[in-house]
């Protein structure tokens, strides 16, 4: 009953390019952000339960391991945001040709790195 249909792309012979890596990274960051959003729920629950719980939450979140996760989370957030805007332009019918796909791809890489570094510089100077 079920026919085996050909699947593409054929990953074993597929040469990765900037555009394909950015495409899969959009899904990857989407999945990561969905899981990471639980941190936000823990944050709001900790606030609801009062100061003691919040202090405990702060202690855990200020551990270098949590901060590393948060750093990854912010990069994922800015990447998904930038590339999401790129996708919305595509959906509206703009920038589909190869040249502009590469230009917007480069812009996405630049803006997500720039926003991540900027965010953590602000956090660093605000805390210290």
């Amino acid at each position, binding site marked *: 009953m079920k026919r085996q249909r050909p699947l593409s792309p054929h990953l074993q012979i597929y040469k990765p390019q900037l555009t394909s890596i950015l495409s899969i990274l959009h*899904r990857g960051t*989407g*999945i990561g*952000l*969905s899981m990471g*959003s*639980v941190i*936000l*729920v823990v944050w*709001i*629950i900790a*606030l*609801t339960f009062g*100061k003691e719980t*919040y*202090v405990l939450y*702060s202690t855990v979140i200020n551990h270098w391991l949590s901060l590393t996760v948060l750093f990854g989370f*912010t990069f994922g*957030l800015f990447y998904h*945001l930038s590339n*999401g*805007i790129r*996708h*919305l332009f595509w*959906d509206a019918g703009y920038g589909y040709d190869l040249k502009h796909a590469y230009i917007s791809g480069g812009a996405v890489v630049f803006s997500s790195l720039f926003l991540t570094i900027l*965010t953590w510089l*602000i*956090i660093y100077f*605000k*805390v210290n």
Partner: protein
Amino acid sequence: MNNNIMENKLNKVQAMKSLKNHGLAHWKLQRISAIAMVPLVIWFTSSLMLVLINGYEQSIEWLQNPFNATGLILLFGILYFHAASGLQVVIEDYVHHEGLKIVSLILIKLVAFVLGVLSILCVLKIFL
């Protein structure tokens, strides 16, 4: 006989049409929630940096502002809608076992719904 075949074909076409419309509605809602997330994410990350790292009292005070509470409720609601619709597409693309697909789709929506309700309730409790 001929009539029967025609009727069958008509049924098939109508079934496909309704499937197609369903897919289109999902596609549209995913984009609309994506557009809504753009200002919400920018607002939230900048507020987070400027206010929330200051500690418990400032965070509570921030949440008692009706505009911030409204923004946060919108953020949580749309975030979990967007996350569920994105994860749904990923599951539909990669999970080929029919039973596993249905179970994971239901589970994703359930978890997203619970997390959304829980976080919005927390915002309300702090605000009120």
